[in-house]
């Protein structure tokens, strides 16, 4: 086994086979449930610590978090984050993290596992490439919210800027208020729920996944079409929203469902060589 492949397998991560269309092979749910990253800290959720991030820069805040996890603290409170950039990134650990304030750009990016609550607002590119866990933001969020997330629940109870969930590859993004233009651009998998209005070009060039909108849609993007809501997904939506104290404005069945029309060129079955002949 090649070194790269071997180390990937040892870490319990899935591998991708790039023959023909991309096929993903995942490990079993049991493996996923007990999975811990090599070097992950054994933390106790009942052990609580808090610190003042006011005088610290982003690197110092992140090192402090790591140090506390190393000491076994499973519940950590950050006070006065001051909208600094790059805070709480790369946490590959189970952790209850409470942020009492606002974050700047790229907050909580590349996380896998923690449950994070944020009392304030987050800037651009929050939770980029999130793999699992939950993030709940009480106020508003900037643009590029949840770009390329692969799993977990990302919730903003307020309004969000443009390009929510571009390149989303899994997980659930929930926006309690309004969202800007180009949300779900090139979305590939997962669910996005916008309870307020959505901006123009919603779901442009989406490959797959589902977008639900409670308010008005300024305009659909290329190949985004309206889908039919089923009882099963309405029930799922109600349960999911209830978890975070939210509800669809007129009931889940009244949400507008947007899916990929799958009429773009990349959905045909032609191989590149055949395409040349046809075109």
């Amino acid at each position: 086994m090649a070194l790269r492949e071997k180390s990937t397998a040892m870490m319990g991560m899935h591998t991708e086979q790039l023959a023909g269309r991309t096929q993903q092979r995942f490990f079993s749910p049991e493996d996923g449930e007990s999975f811990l990253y090599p070097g992950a800290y054994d933390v106790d959720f009942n052990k609580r610590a808090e610190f003042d991030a006011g005088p610290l820069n982003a690197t110092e805040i992140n090192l402090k978090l790591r140090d506390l996890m190393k000491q076994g603290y499973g519940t950590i409170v950050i006070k006065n984050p001051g909208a600094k950039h790059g805070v709480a990134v790369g946490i590959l650990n189970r952790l209850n993290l409470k942020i009492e304030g606002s974050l700047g750009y790229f907050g909580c990016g590349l996380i896998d596992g923690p449950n994070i609550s944020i009392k304030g607002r987050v800037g651009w590119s929050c939770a980029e490439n999130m793999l699992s866990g939950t993030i709940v933001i009480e106020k508003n969020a900037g643009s590029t919210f949840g770009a390329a997330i692969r799993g977990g629940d990302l919730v903003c109870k307020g309004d969000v800027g443009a390009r929510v969930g571009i390149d989303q590859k899994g997980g659930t993004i929930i926006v309690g208020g309004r969202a800007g233009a180009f949300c779900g651009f090139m979305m590939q998998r997962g669910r996005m729920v916008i309870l307020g209005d959505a901006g123009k070009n919603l779901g442009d060039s989406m490959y797959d996944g589902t977008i639900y909108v409670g308010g008005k849609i300024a305009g659909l993007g290329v190949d985004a079409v309206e889908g039919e809501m089923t009882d099963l997904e309405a029930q799922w939506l109600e349960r999911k929203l209830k978890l975070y104290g939210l509800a669809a404005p007129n009931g889940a069945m009244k949400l507008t469902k947007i899916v990929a029309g799958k009429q773009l060129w990349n959905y045909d079955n032609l191989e590149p060589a055949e395409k040349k002949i046809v075109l």
Partner: protein
Amino acid sequence: MCGIAGLIHRKKTGDIGTEMTKMLVSLKHRGPDSTGFALYGKPKGNELVLRFKVAEQEDMAKGFDIHQQVKDRRSEVDRRLKELGAKILKEEEATEYAFRYRIEYDGDRRKLADYIEDIDGAEILSIGLGLELIKDLGDATRVSEQYHLKGFNGSHAIGHTRMATESDVDIRSAHPYWAYPFADVSVVHNGQLTNYWKGRRALEHRGHRFVSNCDSELIAVYLADKMQQGATLKDSMEDSIEELDGVFTYLVATSDSLGMAKDTMAAKPMVLYESNEFIALASEEVAIRSVFPREIDTFDPYEGEVRVWKSE
């Protein structure tokens, strides 16, 4: 990348020099090449504040007689001001090459600007009853200290930290831009305009002058042209959303107003804090936090949005 910031006290004045310095220091990482301030102080009757320079900062290290040339150019500015009937009330030397005059002048401001800028190396940074436009190379701390901006009392301000991408690192390419020939109108911009040359040619044909090759200058001149034709500030800005092509977020200030506009792609950031007393906007929230250390509610304006606030 560039960072932009703006603030307005709606019901009173404040130390906008210190506030804008703090905001721009927080945005230093978005562009360290140059920093600029457009500060709006309390007008003194009909006295005009004239900010001008007669050389670039980098010129001062060149040539054998640049120091004498600078003196000669300044003397020529003084002579031409007198020739046009302007009365110089007070002269201040901010740096060896940049000056602040208080003048009395009732004539055509465009004619005054054109005549002064006809002098080799001379550029008018601003003319206004309240506007004082200061820009130079270096970060906000350096420029603020160099021009003694802390303690500047006024109602509103905009500022800019520049990452040079489209044009040179020099003062003429630094923001803010004065909306020649309109007194008290200034603009800062973050983004790129893709129809710059087309727009510039059209405005030059209409008699407007450009002092740099920086695409951001187009916004200032564009708005000046619109307002010259009778449009309001807000209408001019709304037209700009359709007519300027590219990605942009810009701030514009007039004698009593502060405005923001964001392109239809919402590609450039802007965070906004709004209360009855104070409005603050910046490319990043961290700049607003530098003047509001406590927790506040902020939000992103949306694509194609134009907002204008007035000081009372």
